[in-house]
Structures are given as structure tokens and as C-alpha cells.
């Protein structure tokens, strides 16, 4: 079954009296377990699309089904719940809380679980996720005491702590150097392959894009091309 199903999605921003169309009819399906890379020039509407995929924003027109469910009909509470349970976010700027330990940062999504989680269970799950991203010995470190790559890995652990099916990453390597970027992408590949998490990642870097199974290129709010990744294609062949 398709996890994500976009049909003719439009997004129009209204600036005063002028309508600014950003997405002009995007149709895309992403199957469960896929690794998709979104590419495109700056200002082409990638982030806008990601926000819609992440239920932070709603399309002005068109349909968006997540897990077969139409999103535009949901109320804000239901969408918040969906973000909490089904979707994990990784941002370009890591968005970790300053002066807060890695463990506490990772525990944030658990605070908003509708079914309460006991304190020790929260700690256990957060520590487990941090171990998974290789930070088991950095639990008590604050963001200022971590390198950029480590901070982004804490952010990944935070995104995964509620075991979402979908991981959305908007330029996650934008603030990292190339070798740390590579490590992070390897981690994404591993998560995708070992745990079957569906990943959609926005990037400018063709090398990064090659890690993905499929590359979707956006230009001026329209999908320009959908291609199987050369890297993966080679693997498959």
C-alpha cells in the first residue's frame, strides 16, 4: 500500500492582494519502506511540499492521503497526533533545546503522547534511540557540548523515539561537512533498510541524492522528473 499519496496538490500563499502559487499541481506516491530524495533549486517549493507531507501545513487544493487517510479533513488535534505518532522530523538547523541534555531532548516527543508513558520507560526509550545513532555515551551532554554531526544524530534519535513510519528530513546535511554528511546518510540508509522506515529527504547534493532509491526533482512547483537513483539502480541490476 502507498504510504503517501499526493494528487494534484496546490499551495498558494497569499501576500496582501497577490496570490503566490508555490506548488502548482504535484502528484506523487511514496510506497511504505521507500527512500525518496527531493531535489530542486532554492525556492522551487521543496520545503513547502515537506511541510504538507509532515502535516504542518495543508494544501490549498488537491488531495493528500497518509496511510490511506485523507489529511485535509483532520482537525488540528488529530494532525498533531499524527505528527507525534506517525511522522519524524529532522531539520537543517537541528532545533535542539539549548541547556538541555541529549536524553531530555530526545524525550520531548514522548511528552505529547496521548497515552502517558512512565518516566523510566521514557528514559529507556530515549537512551535506546541514542544508542542506535551511536551516542550511548553522550546521554547527558548538552547541545553546546556536541559536534554538529552529533547534534543532528540527537535530532534523528528524537525523530525516531516514537517509532514513526515516516521520516522527513529537510536538508539534514545542510549544516554539516561532507564526511559527517556521509555518516548521517549511511545512518538513514540503515534505518530504511533495517527498520523499514519510509524516508523522504530534501537535498541539493547529487551525491546525497544517490543514496536514495528514487530521486524526485521539483522545479517551479511542479515535479519535473522522477528517476530511480543511479546508485540504487546499479545495486538492483
Amino acid at each position: 500500500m502507498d504510504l503517501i499519496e499526493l494528487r494534484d496538490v496546490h499551495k498558494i500563499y497569499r501576500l496582501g492582494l497577490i496570490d503566490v502559487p508555490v506548488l502548482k499541481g504535484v502528484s506523487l506516491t511514496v510506497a511504505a519502506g521507500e527512500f525518496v530524495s527531493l531535489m530542486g533549486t532554492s525556492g522551487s517549493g521543496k520545503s513547502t511540499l515537506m511541510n504538507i507531507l509532515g502535516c504542518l501545513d495543508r494544501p490549498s487544493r488537491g488531495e493528500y492521503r497518509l496511510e490511506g487517510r485523507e489529511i485535509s479533513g483532520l482537525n488540528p488535534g488529530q494532525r498533531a497526533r499524527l505528527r507525534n505518532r506517525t511522522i519524524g522530523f529532522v531539520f537543517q538547523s537541528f532545533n535542539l533545546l539549548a541547556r538541555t541534555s541529549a536524553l531530555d531532548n530526545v524525550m520531548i516527543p514522548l511528552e505529547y503522547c496521548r497515552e502517558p508513558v512512565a518516566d523510566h520507560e521514557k528514559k529507556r526509550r530515549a537512551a535506546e534511540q541514542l544508542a542506535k545513532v551511536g551516542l550511548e555515551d553522550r546521554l547527558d551532554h548538552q547541545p553546546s557540548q556536541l559536534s554538529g554531526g552529533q547534534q543532528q544524530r540527537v535530532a534523528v534519535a528524537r525523530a525516531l523515539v516514537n517509532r514513526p513510519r515516516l521520516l522527513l528530513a529537510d536538508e539534514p546535511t545542510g549544516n554539516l561537512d561532507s564526511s559527517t554528511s556521509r555518516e548521517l546518510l549511511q545512518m538513514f540508509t540503515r534505518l530504511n533498510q533495517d527498520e523499514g522506515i519510509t524516508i523522504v529527504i530534501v537535498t541539493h547534493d547529487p551525491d546525497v541524492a544517490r543514496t536514495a532509491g528514487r530521486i524526485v526533482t521539483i522545479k517551479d512547483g511542479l515535479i519535473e522528473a522522477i528517476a530511480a537513483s543511479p546508485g540504487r539502480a546499479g545495486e538492483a541490476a
Partner: protein
Amino acid sequence: MRLYVTLKTAFRALRRNVMRTVLTTLGIIIGVASVITMMEIGKGASLAIQKTMTSIGANTLVVLPGAASAFGVNFGAGSVVTLSPKDAAAIALECPGVRSVAPIVRARAQVVYGNRNWVPTYIYGTTPSFLTVRDWEELDRGAVFSEHDVRNANKVCLVGQTIVRELFGGLSPLGQEVRIRNVAFKIVGVLKKKGANLMGLDQDDILLAPWTTIKYRVVGTSLGGGNQSATNTANSGEVNSLNQIYPNLQQNLYPVASDTELADSPQPIRFTSVDQILTAAASSEEIPAAIAQITGLLRERHRLKAKEANDFNVRDMTEITKAMSSTTELITRLLLYVAMISLAVGGVGIMNIMLVSVTERTREIGLRMAVGAEQKDILRQFLTEAVVLCLLGGVMGIVIGRGSSYVVSKVLHWPTASSVEAIVASVAVSATVGVVFGFYPAWKASRLDPIEALRYE
């Protein structure tokens, strides 16, 4: 569970910026501390005022006999004889709103000591509880006469400072004897100086003796309101050896019986009356209750039917009580204003910092929304932070306030009184301030758009 999580999150957020937390709460701390200090000083002051007022007789209720009227002529309060010492005893026993009761038999007579004489403003026959009613228990010298003296009509008395000055020239009168209408009274105690009352009458110009002694040995019958002063003309035709030495103050309506006649047929006293009953209400608030209780009791004791008018009057010191309650009310109101202003200032401080905090934490809010926080979660979190801040400030303020009121009472010797209401009120008020002034920033935070919040620099 939910509350616990929210509280923990709030504490974690506050701990992240300790300095700001402390500075923010400073407004509330100072506010609450000043409220507590003021309240305690104010309460001490109003207790002191109340005590002073009590000592000038603010809580005093006077029960007077009713007015007689005949053929349209009213003879004024006290012109009939209706009150008995038993009424006084019954009031003491059965009226819970009354602290103390003393019957009073008045006399106006010359007091003689050696070659000096003086007519005191007050010669009161009463019981020892008179001093309790008047808040005058502490004596300058000697001791109060006892209930035993009252029962036996012993010839003992207490004198006020004016009498000491006029008759004894300031020397100690203890143990000396003065004569009132030829009855010798031994002075057992001297009252402390009290000064003039509100009407300008000298309260120290007083002689107190057991009412039985005054009644049976000095006055003989009730004065019935009509004062017989030394200016009364004596029965001129009467031949009495003592009358030639001392003016006879008694008005004899009937032919005077000779000593032999008196001894042969003693006149039974039909009704022992007193001129007034002095009572003290337990507190100024209980004055109306005490009046109602006394009225009910006396009507019952005097067997008055429902339609019959009271044959007595209960007077209270309305003017003084009014002055007292308006003074304490003024103090309380003044403090309330000060309290409200300082807490409002503290509240504005909290709001200010919370607004700054919301702006500063825009990204955090965006992130929390992205990982599943709803608007109401954000609202609750910031509101909780504000309330926790205010409560922390409140607790600190209580500690500091109590401390400084202690210092004030120790160093400046101002009267203070601990006030539980002030503590309860300031906790309640600081929580309210937290909610009221925390609401707008919290509401602002909850209305943030997560996408813009995440992008905020």
C-alpha cells in the same frame, strides 16, 4: 499524571535560565513580601487600636432602667426601678456575647478625710468585675475588694487618682478611712490613672465600693435617677445631731422613725434594685449579638408580654465603635491598595519576561508543535511556567515578609501580628497573578504557526 509532566517540563524550562527566573520572580517576591509585612504591621496596629478603644470603653454596653411616664410626662431613662442585681448575674451567666458584667448603684455624696472633703463625680457601688468591664484591672496600689466584701457589705473602697490628690495630697491612702455620709470606708486599693473620658469627664474622680455597702449603708434606697447632691436642702425641721455636723443628703418622704421604732419594726426591702448594669461585649463585632441576648433575657426575666415595651434600655457606644471600625477598615483598605499595586507591578514584570521568553523560545515552540504538541499543550506549558514562577515568588515573598515583619517588631518595636489570611491570600493572589499575566504570553505562544516558528531566527 498529565499535571506532573507539565510541572516537570515547566521546572526544566525555568531551570534552563536560572538568572532570568530569579529576576522575574523578584517582582512577585517583593510584592508578596511587602504585602505580608504590611498586613502583619497593619494587623498589629489595628489590634493595638482595638485594645486602646476597649480601654476607653468601646465595647461597653450600659443597661439602664426604663423611663416612667405618667399623664404624658416622661421622666427620662432610669426613672423607674426595674433592674436588680439578679439581672446582672443572669446576664453574666446566660449571654455568651458578654464578656463581663457589673451592677452599679450610684451615689452622690461628700467624701470626708480628716479636715478635707470632696464630692467625687462618681461614687459607684459595684462588684469587682467593674474593673474587668472597664479594662482597668491593674491597680496602682493595693488590691480590689472581693466578692466576699460584696456579700457582706463590707465597708471597703477603691479610690481614683483625683481623690488621692484632693483628699490625701498625693500621699498613699492605703489603709486610711474616709467617711461617706458618716459611714467609714477603708481604702484597700488605688486605681491607675485613666484621664478624662470622651465627654471630658474626669474618670479618675471615682470611688468604688461594694454595691451592697453603698446600697444598704449609704443610699438606703435607690436614687431612682434623681441625683441627690450636696446642694439638696436637708429636712430643716429634722432634729438629728449628725445633721448639724454633716449636711443630710437624704430626702425623707415619710416621717422619720426614731431609732427605737426602727428597731421594733424593721422595714423589709421589697425590691433590691440597681441603677444600671454595666456590661462589656466580648468583642466589637459581637456588640449587636450581645444587645440582642441581653434584651431577650431581660424581657423574659421581667415577664414582659410580646406587645409590651421594654422596661429597660441597652445603650452602646455607637460613636466610639463606629470610629474604631472605620479606623481599622481604613487601615485594611489602605493595605489592600498597596498590596494590589505591588502585586500588579510584579504581575506586569512576569508578563514582560514571559513575552520575552516566548519570543526567545519561538523555535522551541515550533519544534514542540512539530513533534505533536497541540495549541492547548503549549498554552498549558507556558501558563504553568508563569504560575510556578509566581508561586515560587509567593513562597519566597512569604518567607522574606515574615522575616522582615519579625525584624520590624524586634528592632522598631512596632506591634505586629502574624496573619494567616495574608499568607493564604498572597499565595492565592500570586497564583492568580500568574494565570492572569501569564495568559497573554501563553496564548500568544500557542497561536504561533509551527512552520514560521521553526524558521524563526
